[in-house]
């Protein structure tokens, strides 16, 4: 499995609403008995670091709550990390991560999970970026004399 591909889906799953993830993943999940939980959802902290001036030395800005979970499905080890304290979200990501690594599960999940989530995320971001761009100032110059 290519790291960049896995990085991409883990990021996408973390950026998607848990309710939507649950909806799309539902039909792909194996029976609960086939999932072995190495770590049920656990909430903790990540210290956020910034850089002075945006590009200088690092400093500690403050913490963020993060929930993580790990499970094993048919020999594939899945990990879920997501900001916030939503146990279900972290466990859904872990299950999706395990399934996505399985070459047999990947194609249907790519089409029925990743693709719609990707489109919806892009649409949300585009909507927000276009709404912000609508508030861009258009300066006009008053010409005096000739």
């Amino acid at each position: 499995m290519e790291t960049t591909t896995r990085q991409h889906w883990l990021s996408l799953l973390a950026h998607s609403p848990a309710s939507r993830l649950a909806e799309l993943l539902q039909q792909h999940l194996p029976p609960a008995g086939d999932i072995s939980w190495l770590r049920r959802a656990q909430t903790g902290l990540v210290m956020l670091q910034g850089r002075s001036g945006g590009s200088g030395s690092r400093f500690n800005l403050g913490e963020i709550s993060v929930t993580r979970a790990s499970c094993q499905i048919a020999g594939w080890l899945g990990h879920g990390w997501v900001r916030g304290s939503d146990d279900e979200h972290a466990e859904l990501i872990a299950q999706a991560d395990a399934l996505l690594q399985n070459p047999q599960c990947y194609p249907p999940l790519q089409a029925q999970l990743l693709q719609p989530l990707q489109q919806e995320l892009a649409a949300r971001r585009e909507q927000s970026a276009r709404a912000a761009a609508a508030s861009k100032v258009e300066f006009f110059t008053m010409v005096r004399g000739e």
Partner: protein
Amino acid sequence: MYVAVKGGETAIARSWDLLAAARRGDSALAELSLGQIRQQLRLAVARVMQEGSLYDEELAALALKQAAGDTVEAVFLLRAFRTTLPRFASSKPLDTAAMRVRRRVSGTFKDVPGGQILGPTADYTQRLLDFSLGDNSDVPPCALADSGVPQPLPSVLEVLAAEGLIEAEQPLPGDPEPADLTRQPLMFPADRATRLQNLARADEGWLLGLAYSTQRGYAESHPFAGEIRMGEVSVSVCPEELGFDIDIGEITLTECQMINQFAGSKTAPPQFTRGYGLSFGEAERKAMAMALVDRSLRAEELGEAAHAPAQQQEFVLYHSDNVEASGFVQHLKLPHYVDFQAELSLIRTLRAQATSSAVQEANHD
């Protein structure tokens, strides 16, 4: 003699009931949901997260509800809860250059690459009370431009940096791990990373007053708002079990790059210097105040005379935390009965002595 005083359990339990009843108010009115607080009081939520030093909208909304809207009390609740959670990791440094910008303004250049984007700001409102909000209000739809704000949006300061007119902002050699005030006590002199962490957690009112003082002449500060940007930034971590970086979601941040005049020193040519502010959520006032105070605290490093309160590290950093400040001011409510009895008897003795010596002096006369 030592007298142990016990009692008051019943009174304390009754005070909890009164507090809960006062919090709820008139039960004929609908109760506030956490979702409503998150959505409709988002700036209060952001402030509680920032000063509580924990980014979690749901917990901050709960803290605000529990504290009946008292920001400092809500900050205290969040800080206390934070201590119950394990620390998993540190994030990769937040990349504010890659921010999905919803607002970006510059007070230094009219024509900045990407333009001035106002976003959801109260700056251009008349500050007239809108009585229509007293009833349920309909929100007009937001216009959409044909294309979105570019991402990444170039930074305003790059214009000055390209000409070498502003000090470079680069990591120290080896990009050292910064000190962490949640694990090590504040020591002086504090380096910039420590100061920035302290200022990030600092009470907004405290920072605002100090920042204002630098503008009114209590520091050699000639600031310009080089750039203020607000929007979403992804959070990246490198979990041990994965061994590579992943994004775990995005957060809203406000960043302020303040530009200050600097006449130069023996080692540095005349150039602009920087003050930096970064805060959770939409928190422009906080980010700007933080940037001004960050710059004023750099006085010594830049060879400026540090005579103003906002330039003095110990004064600024020791008094910035509103949980500590609130605790120490309010601890005066706790029983000081024995201390006070001692003071009282001292005053009585002194008065008795003063009276008797006055009588003696009168007798001499």
